[in-house]
């Protein structure tokens, strides 16, 4: 198993390596002089020269890459052109928000998705099955940002029971320790902030959960169906075991592997793909940070964010792989 994990880790390292090359090339591919892009508007020739020197822009491309990569490995993702803040610092400041949102969304998606998937597989062809699968189809066809706006309209404007934007009410003071707001508010026993943070989480995480929910429901259903048709389940049934026992103890246990994998990959995708939800709900996360950077051509931020997200996605996938290997000892490449 160690060998398998090691192999996966190396594969992911290669992926990260290629991502780093792409991110590196980003500034070179973009129209304009890289030094000018890095320096921002209206700087003197001196500063341009200094930047060329610092990033080795006069040297061959390969040398440039190694200079840049050396900095990245030391945690230096450069500074934003717009705000002159360190990109890594900004990303780390925003990441907890994206993480909390994604975590909430994936929990909702898994609970509802797995439950619905199991029921529709057990009652295959029933009204419930059709209903679930239709909803799942709507789920994947729905523009997340529109769903977000509609949720805002219904719960925020018409019913006026939930906040529609931001991470925390502006009037709330919270001592930041880890920057994970839920954690920080518990640590400081600031329950007012805690419940407010939860309230702000509800609508965005529901909006964000729809697509993974649909996928998880579909996968749960199909893998449950696969297993329910297997011989040993039939044997179990023939032995006269209760249907519930068959379903939940035998079938579900075996169907769990693909389900966990899909939950894991979906979670990884959410971490990088919460862009739309974050924009709709003015959520101060990584996604909104990237969109802002792209529209104002803040390349160091785009660059840093890609690497950061690719790293996250790879990391989560690696953990999924490891889990996978634990759950299913048969996997030994």
């Amino acid at each position, binding site marked *: 198993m160690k060998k398998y994990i090691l192999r996966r880790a190396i594969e992911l390292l290669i992926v990260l390596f290629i991502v780093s090359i792409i991110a590196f090339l980003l500034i070179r591919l973009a129209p304009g002089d890289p030094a000018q892009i890095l320096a921002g*508007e209206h700087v003197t020739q001196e500063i341009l020269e200094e930047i060329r020197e610092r990033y080795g822009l006069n040297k061959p491309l390969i040398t440039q890459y190694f200079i840049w990569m050396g900095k990245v490995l030391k945690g230096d993702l450069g500074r934003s052109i717009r705000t002159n803040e360190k990109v890594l610092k900004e990303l780390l400041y925003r990441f907890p928000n994206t993480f909390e949102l994604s975590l909430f969304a994936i929990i909702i998606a898994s609970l509802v998705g797995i439950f619905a998937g199991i029921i529709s597989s057990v009652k295959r062809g029933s009204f419930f099955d059709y209903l679930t699968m239709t909803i799942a189809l709507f789920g994947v066809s729905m523009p997340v940002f529109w769903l977000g706006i509609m949720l805002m309209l219904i719960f925020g404007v018409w019913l006026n029971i939930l906040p529609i934007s931001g991470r925390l009410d502006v*009037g709330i003071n919270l001592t930041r320790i880890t920057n994970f707001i839920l954690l920080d508010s518990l640590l*400081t026993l600031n329950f007012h902030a805690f419940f407010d943070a939860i309230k702000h989480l509800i609508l965005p995480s529901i909006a964000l959960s729809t697509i993974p929910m649909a996928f998880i429901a579909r996968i749960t259903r199909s893998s449950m169906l696969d297993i329910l048709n297997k011989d040993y389940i039939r044997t179990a049934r023939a032995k006269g075991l209760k249907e519930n026992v068959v379903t939940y103890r035998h079938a579900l246990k075996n169907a769990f592997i693909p389900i966990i994998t899909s939950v894991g990959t979906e979670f990884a995708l959410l971490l990088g793909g919460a862009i739309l939800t974050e924009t709709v709900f003015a959520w101060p996360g990584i996604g909104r940070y990237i969109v802002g950077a792209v529209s104002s051509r803040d390349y160091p931020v785009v660059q840093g964010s890609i690497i950061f997200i690719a790293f996250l996605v790879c990391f989560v996938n690696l953990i999924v792989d490891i889990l996978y290997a634990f759950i299913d000892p048969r996997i030994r490449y």
Partner: protein
Amino acid sequence: MKSIRLLIGLVLIGLLTFGLILNTGCKKKVELVTLTFAKSGDVVKLDPADVTDGESITVMDNIFEGLIRYKEGTTELEPCLAERWEEGADGMSFTFYLRKGVKFHDGTDFNADSVVFSFERLRDPNHPYHKYGEWEYWSWCFTEIEKTEKIDDYTVKITLNDKFAPFLTTMAMFTVFIVSPANYEKWKEEAYAHPVGTGPFKFVEWVKDDHITLEKFDGYWGPKPKIDKLIFKVIPDASVRLLELQKGTIDGMEFPNPDDLDKIKGDANLKLLTQPGLNIGYLAFNLGEDTPGYDPHFKDVRVRQAVYYAINKKDIVEHLYKGTAVVAKNPLPPTLWGYNDEIVDYEYNPEKAKELLKEAGYPNGFETNLWAMPVARPYMFDPQKIAEAIQSDLANVGIKAKLVTYDWGTYLDKTEGGEHAMCLLGWTMDYPDPDNIMYVLLDPDAATVGSAGNVAFYRSSKIHELNMLARTTFDINERAKYYKEMQKIIHEDIPWVPLAHSQQMVVFRKNVKGFSLYPSGDYHFDKTYIEK
């Protein structure tokens, strides 16, 4: 399994005790009065001399002070850090007698040295702190200052190299707010993020794009502020600002969406403060052939006229400003002296526009771009919307304009660098003198690529001549004549399409009292209080 549960249990208990300790640690509960005011955009920098935009200035109004200030809610001058002043012969020098016993927030004394520092760092290219900023405003309207000298610890003499009629009014401006020299020694190029002044509030923290917190300065020389904590919260969307205000999570906000005015007036918990602002929202053509964004189409005055005729200003003011503004025909606001009311505005006339385009050789129109700022401004509440309305008006006569936008700081940088063909911009006057528009926004002196206040890059020698005359003349009637003449020339040359002069608007919750709007657009919270 059991051990895992045990572990989780232990961790939880640990967290809780940790939390308890932290919580009891800061449990000294005194009722602090906090006022949260929502702004539409973040500050660019917190160095009063290195910014030109209202978002930054309105925050610094509370941290810093100048030698002179405006009397509450007016454009009249009154002493501030200078207790009195004397004008030298010919108006070529001014001596300021400074207030004693004033302290900066960092504990250092306010004295002649700090005044000299605050001025000289802007003026003298060899000053050790000169390189830390661009000091645009200085180059726009303080170049008449020859030098600033210390006479004794509490006396400062400012010598001019030329007569400058608006001089005293400019001394109330943010550019010459007095900063703490010790603070610059400490932070150097980072000082813009750690402002230290003598004002009623001291700086606590700035979380970019989120909020700025100020705290009552206990050592303030004047009447102490009545609120303990002042938070400027950045909420770019006007509707969200209003929602938060209605919920009571914030106490006040700027720039309400005109679409929401009825709602505000109908809400018993809110009150709307308005005042005709000394401002102008305009569309500028880029006439600078040396700029990257120069569009040769606009070289022909007939094309500029065509654009002027094509834009339905009245509809824009009526429906997008919702009547909270008046249509502009001059760069100067109508409430200011020197306004030329004899100018007859070009009317809305798309047919005439088409004709002019045909005459100019573009019967089928042409393609160009129109820049619009991303944030609400006091002179333009929703620039994006106005830009789209103008885009549609222009399309009607055949001019296809692509809309361009950037975040606020970048937008200013790029327009000052002349990267636009046409751009929307505006101005809230920083001192109530026509000079602040005619010289700062329309004089060739202000048309340097990269730091232009004159984003039209309109370089008229006639305007320059008149500006110089007006600056060195002290008789107000004489000066008014020059400004009226300038408005005529500008009306013919059309470097701009003046769009609207809008009202300043802020909304507060009913229990917030003691806040006055200033014609200059400044926000001062030192007299503001919250009624229980």
